[in-house]
């Protein structure tokens, strides 16, 4: 499914310390157009709860999560 998604921006957030992964994603999404997709790659286990919680409060959507070794790719669609 991940291969079918058109990705507009990719961010490598691996190794960043708390709370930068969510902050960077939030800042990047603000610069994007509604409907565009961001892929954020992170090694933070906490991202599996932090990213969905951020998406709920900011009104965006996580459309897919792909695990690749120690890292996870979060596919985030800007909804508003």
């Amino acid at each position, binding site marked *: 499914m991940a291969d079918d998604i058109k990705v507009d921006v990719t961010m490598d957030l691996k190794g960043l*310390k*708390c*709370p*930068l*992964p*969510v*902050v960077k994603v*939030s*800042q990047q999404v603000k610069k994007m157009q509604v409907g565009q997709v961001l892929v954020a790659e992170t*090694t*933070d*286990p*906490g*991202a*599996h*709860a*932090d990213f*969905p*919680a*951020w998406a*709920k*409060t*900011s009104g965006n959507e996580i459309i897919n*999560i792909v*695990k690749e070794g*120690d890292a*996870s790719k979060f596919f985030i669609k800007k909804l508003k």
Partner: protein
Amino acid sequence: MDNEKRKALIAKIKTRLSRPMRYYLDLCTRCGLCYDTCHVFYGIPRKEYSPVGRAEVVRRIYKKYFRPSGRIFPSWGDAKEIDDHAMDELLDAAFSCTGCRRCMIHCPFGIDTPFLLSIAKVLLIENGTAPEELTMLADGAVEKGESISEFKEGYREVIRDLEKEVAKRIGAASPDGLIPLEKKGADILFVGLAGAHSIVNPAIIFNKAGASWTLSWFEAVNFGAFLGDPEKMQRIADRVVKEAIALGVKEVVIVECGTAYRIPKFLLGPLPFKVSSIVEVIHRYLKEGKIKIKEKAVQEALTYHDPCQLGRNAGVYEEPREILQSICADYREMTPNRAFNWCCGGGGGLVALDNEQFRIKSGRAKYDQIVATGAKIVVSACENCIFQLDTIKSGYSMDIEVKSLTELVAENLA
């Protein structure tokens, strides 16, 4: 700014005017002793970056609306009306302060400037001009508390991966159960952070000690506190309190995060469990012989940075020093240290803001302190401090290694 908004802001100030707050607002004699105690003023010597300079921004507004002299003769005491410019000044004052309280211990009257700046923070929230990053992080943390059941499976899956890493590092035959989740009746609930290192290193120590423990679903850091929103701070803190009570643990152990430790330890009132820092627990395990470290395993000169919220504001000074003096052959103190240690400039949520150049400049005092020790390894016990020490390292091109205390212990267990 319209009158309705101004009225709402004045009403907000009134909610914060407790007796200690009025004391701090009324008592300052402008002696100026606090100027040289602030790490920000050390790096950026401008009045607005001194403790009294920040406090005056709040005091002038207080005088205008709550002191007779300010109402009748506003120009006598520099009384200032709340307007958009005043709100900008409040933003700069509140979020250039890390809340380290070094100024407070030098002030002849013990004026708590960070407490005074809590007025600035509630005004910024009411005005809708509080830092977006901190608002977003606090809202996310509150939401996580409301909807944790939706996120558990994804988190559980990545914790399983971390268990494999723990198994590899401690030589366990099986990774199963090395990082327990939702273990009812465990002695300890450990609260980590988002990063794997904040879970793996403590997990190695807990397993080596044979501890009965379980990992929290939540992160320890409290962005509601950094934001200065008392309600969100309480809701974020309550997530772990409720979890601990539901699991029936005897002790909640907080990862290396000064504010995360100080809130349940001192600000939530009586709790039905003990609150400890991971540093205190490591120290206890060493004293009890539950873990052993390779004595003097680190030969390079090493120094310790006291995190303000763990040291000056919580009194945990000797435990980290005793641990480090066991591990390293050449331990060197910074001068000054303990209660008088210079703040690194990373606290108060500042590392979450887009202000790297400001933090490099305000980290100048810490840079000078580290250089004076000649140490090649700088250890601390707070994620914010570690983050900021790394910023200082790169900002001043320093030839040092920055390490977390828990990481150093986990790497040097016998």
